[in-house]
């Protein structure tokens, strides 16, 4: 009974091996495509967040490469009573018109820090969006299920009066493909731009 199989067996083994190789190839193509999509998606998301916050900026402090601190206009919930130094509390409460008071009570300046720094136990960088210095608990890139990414460079500069130029370069750790995007955002309410280091 096994004699017939013996004729076909070597060919069978070769064909099974070929099947395995082809399956691995198909899987690899799909995996790389997903990882590249994740890379582009994360770069776009990080850039959109930075430009959105910078648009409403009152003060910008660029601290070397990889670090920017933006004080921007925001609308905050009245229940949050922490004083971050920019809350015009007395101005709001003394207003007599109830409509104006509703908006003025919630009209605050928030501080947003975008910093690209190595993640915990790693030697490659993620971008973190924090409200305070030296706290790293809110990464906005990296550790994606379909492919990890790292930040190669994140540069900020002043392109023109009240124009901030942002340059972001990221790389997928899975496929080693890079993406580099640069844009500029005009900040109508900007009062102070400081570049240190």
């Amino acid at each position: 009974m096994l004699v017939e199989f013996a004729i076909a067996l070597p060919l069978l083994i070769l064909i099974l091996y070929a099947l395995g190789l082809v399956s691995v190839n198909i899987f690899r193509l799909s995996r790389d495509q997903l990882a590249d999509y994740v890379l582009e998606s994360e770069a776009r998301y990080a850039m959109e967040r930075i430009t959105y916050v910078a648009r409403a900026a009152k003060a910008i402090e660029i601290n070397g490469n990889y670090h920017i601190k933006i004080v921007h206009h925001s609308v905050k919930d009245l229940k949050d009573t922490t004083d971050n130094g920019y809350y015009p509390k007395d101005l709001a409460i003394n207003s007599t018109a109830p409509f104006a008071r509703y908006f003025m009570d919630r009209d605050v300046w928030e501080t947003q820090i975008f910093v690209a720094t190595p993640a915990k136990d790693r030697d490659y960088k993620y971008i973190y969006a924090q409200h305070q210095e030296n706290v790293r608990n809110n990464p906005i890139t990296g550790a994606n299920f379909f492919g990890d990414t790292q930040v190669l460079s994140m540069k900020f500069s002043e392109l023109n009066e009240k124009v901030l130029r942002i340059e972001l370069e990221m790389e997928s750790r899975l496929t080693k493909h890079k993406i580099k995007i640069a844009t500029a955002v005009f900040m109508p309410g900007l009062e102070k731009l400081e570049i240190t280091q």
Partner: protein
Amino acid sequence: MKKILNQRGFMMLNVIFLTVITALAAMILINAAPRARNPQATLRLTALYVANEQLAQLESLAAAGNELTTANLVKPEDLKTANFSTGEPLEFTVDTKIGGGNPHKVTVTVSWSVKGQPDSIKVERTIWVAD
């Protein structure tokens, strides 16, 4: 009986053979699919940001009270990109059209071509020139 046993081994061989052929065909089709080689999506994103850069520069000019210009105000290194896998560097062409009246409707067209295939995006913004 012997004839049937003969055919059983070759039946299995044929089944696996057909599976391999199908898998090979699938791999060929995935390779041939244009989306895997289409660089245009990433380039569109990069071009959108280049257009935003030109518009931000125009907004800055307008806020300072200067008249808008159709000149290219994008930093030269931002016009060159290598954001796709074939490795050839690419250069964007920025074209600005300024509408009449104040506020002006500004149309920025960023165009490029990959292997002879041209593509472009158009971004519009309304900019008010300060007095």
